[in-house]
């Protein structure tokens, strides 16, 4: 069900900015010293973009995703997501923002072990509590069809392959129809073929649903699928408009 090589779809340059980082800093206290994970990042991601974050380990990719994903707030500077300044939001409001506007795909899938495929995907809808049971079922079934897991609905995560699990995670991330999906090394735990297929699926959803994707990766082959590659090194964006065709300047070590 992977789509053929996607046409170079680039979000319109005049599309409104969905993510806007201005001089974003993130410092972590480490013992008596302070580690700066991000040292002033300026970045804009517009609606509909399919952006890869590249950079070696420790470069700040995950920290950047954390700030954009509203699971962390900047020490200095501003982070605006879906028009909201995350630094001004309460813990509860951030959670609500994540629930309603964001989707997450994790490196190690992070499914809820005791729930089956259907329940895992339904989980964010249940937290939202907006849809009726029938509406939820319909929404879940539609997304399950899209990720190709129609026959695995009643299975538990432990009974699925890595690729299947990541599809469940993708379905879970997309089921609430978020404006932005963040994927933290989504292919790192998968073999390259499966990884390719997962990225194809994400790309396909980017096209058909218009969902914005930001994903971090080490894998140059995966980067080729992105509209744009944002390269990070030492907590700074070194290239915010990198072409996906060129290989990364800084090779990560996986």
């Amino acid at each position, binding site marked *: 069900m992977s789509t053929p090589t996607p046409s170079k779809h680039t979000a319109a340059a005049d599309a409104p900015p969905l993510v806007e980082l201005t001089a974003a800093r993130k410092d972590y206290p480490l013992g008596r010293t302070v*580690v700066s994970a991000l040292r002033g990042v300026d970045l804009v991601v517009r609606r509909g973009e399919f952006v890869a974050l590249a950079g070696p380990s420790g470069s700040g990719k*995950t*920290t950047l995703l*954390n700030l954009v994903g509203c699971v962390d707030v900047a020490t200095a500077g501003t982070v605006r997501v879906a028009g909201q300044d995350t630094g001004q939001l309460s813990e509860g409001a951030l959670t609500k923002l*994540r629930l309603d506007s964001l989707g997450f795909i994790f490196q190690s899938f*992070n499914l809820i072990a*005791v729930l089956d495929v259907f329940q895992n995907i339904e989980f964010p809808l249940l937290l939202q*509590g907006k849809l009726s049971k029938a509406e939820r079922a319909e929404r879940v079934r539609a997304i399950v069809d899209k990720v190709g897991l129609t026959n695995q609905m009643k299975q538990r995560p432990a009974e699925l392959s890595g690729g299947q699990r990541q599809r469940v995670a993708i379905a*879970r991330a997309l089921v609430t129809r978020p404006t932005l999906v963040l994927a933290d090394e989504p292919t790192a735990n998968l073999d390259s073929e499966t990884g390719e297929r997962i990225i194809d699926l994400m790309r396909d959803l980017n096209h058909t649903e218009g969902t914005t994707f930001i994903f971090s990766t080490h894998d140059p082959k995966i980067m080729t699928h992105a509209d744009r590659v944002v390269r990070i090194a030492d907590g700074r964006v070194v290239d915010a408009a990198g072409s996906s065709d060129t290989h990364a300047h800084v090779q990560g070590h996986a």
Partner: protein
Amino acid sequence: MNLTAAGILWRIALGNVWRNRMKSLIVGFILFLGTGIIVFGNALVDAVDDGMTRSVTQSVSGHLQIYSDDAKDKLALFGDQFAGMPDIGNIPDFHGLAEVVRKVPNVKAVIPMGIDFALGFQGNEIDRWLQRLRAAVRAGDEPMIAQRRDEVRAVVERVFNELKGAAALVAAGGEYAEDMKAAERAASPEFWAAFDQDRLGNLEFLENRIAPLEQTLGDVGLMFLGTDLASFEKNFDRFELVEGSRVPEGQRGFIFNHGFYEEVMKHRVARDLDKIKRRMEEGYTFEADAEIRSWRDQMAGQYRRVLFQLDRQAGERIRDGLRTLLGQASGELPDLLQSFLKVDDATFAARYAWFYENVAPHIQLYAAQIGDTIPLQAYTKAGYSKSINVKVYGTYKFKGLEKSDVGKMFNLVDMVTFRDLYGLMTPERRAEVAAIRERAGLKDVKREDAEAALFGGTAAVETTAQATGFDEFGGDGGAKVERSQADQKFEPTEIERGVALNAAVTLTDPTKLVETRAAIQDALKAAGLKMRVVDWKEAAGMMGDLVTVARTVLWVIVVIMLLVALVIINNSMVIATMERVKEIGTMRAVGAQRSFIAALFLAETTVLGLLSGGFGALCAAGGIMLWGKIGLPAQNAFMTFLFSGPRLYPTITFSHLFAAVMLIMFFALISTLYPAVLAARILPRVAMAEEG
């Protein structure tokens, strides 16, 4: 949190309980055990409470007790462990009080009571023989005199032989030598040849010089409860007459407690045999148990108590029987009896039976037989001793409490005799005594005044005694009046019209105890009677506190156990939290609020608590139901009292189970609070890759 989220919360909780089976098993087992112990403990304490309630309320106390508000001490029916019998004052006019109390709704009966202590005389074996001889001499019945004389002679000879044996061991001299001389004379054929020449003189010699040589059996202390015997029997359904008959209405009379009668009044050797038999029935043997051997040796040392009671004929028959039984061709009775009583595991059963078949019929098996008139001596409130003869009509027991000490505590006596022994008199009786005193003449009165002054100090005592209604009329003068007391009748109304120490109140509906107590209190107050009304638990003194103590101990154990459980549950939950950081972070990242995470942990504990607590409660309930069928045997007398019978049959109620599960749930949730808060604090970013 919305309803749909709550749904998935329970599903995840249930799933996690199953997924973390090891943790669930450990925590679940603690909750299971905790619930079981609470259910079991409560059912047990409730059953004991119930048993004790029955033991106490249906034997002596009734549901409520009334006593004077002027009491120096608190009423303690079963005595105070430290201070003996408490001074509880008295109810001057029982009838007046009863009339008031009986009008209160829910009151079934009001029974007068008074507990006191008296000495009963066990008497002396030689004295008994001499009494029979004296009776025959008095009656002038020659053949009987001859028979009785021979009997006395046989006993005196035995006493002399015994003394000779002792004298060989102890260097004779002084008073002992005098005794030996007297015994030698009494045992000599010359003395008996000349006996008939001065029967009374010789009897006096035997009574004064020989009888005291026999080791005295001593006096026996007995507790007695004076009451309206008919009403007592009617209202305390634990009461059951064992032997003899009821005390006829309007008669003085004494009813022995059957257990007391068997264990105190019975012939020492028979009593020891019974005691050994009971212990052997409990599984002890002479070979293994030092105590039972020590009892046996003490018993064998008491052979004289058998020996001195046997007349010549019986002595010979028993001697011959023992020779056959023991396989000894010769041997005299004292030695034979001693070796007979040296029982062991092999011989006990046969000799026990032989004793009751061949020896018991020839000895006086009880110090006081049913039908005898016994003297009771008590110290009256005025401080002098008073002796009253009262007829023994029978023995009674409290059903189910036969083996408990409390069940054996009280002997019963009629209220009128009680008043005399306690030194309390009705106005009528006081007038009667005054009349007798007048008839006795000035000389006697003067002598009594002197005695009263002697015993009590000054005339002030008399004044006080008069004013409080105490009978100050004691000593020898009293004995004159009371010689025929045992047969003296009284009007049934006299039972009520007079003094009592306390009053037992039984209720139609015992569950309304608190209300009825208040109503009685009000009624007494309205009638101008200054009385205390206490429930049976208070009235039972230290006994009444037992259940409270037991319950406290149970709860202390439960609380300690729960605290330990709290620590264990808390720890294992904290560990579980640490293991699930990623999953919790993911839920948070996906959009679950902190409250959802905290609720998830509480839900997991709730699921686990309900499952294991419910299971624990059901198992305990099953155990109790089974136990309730079989019954828990009482190991000793005290347990018999607590259990209100030889076995405890605990019952289970739904409230037991519900309360236990609720309590365990509460504790489990408390234990989960900290881990839940900890989990709720987990940051959503931990779900992401572990990269800076």
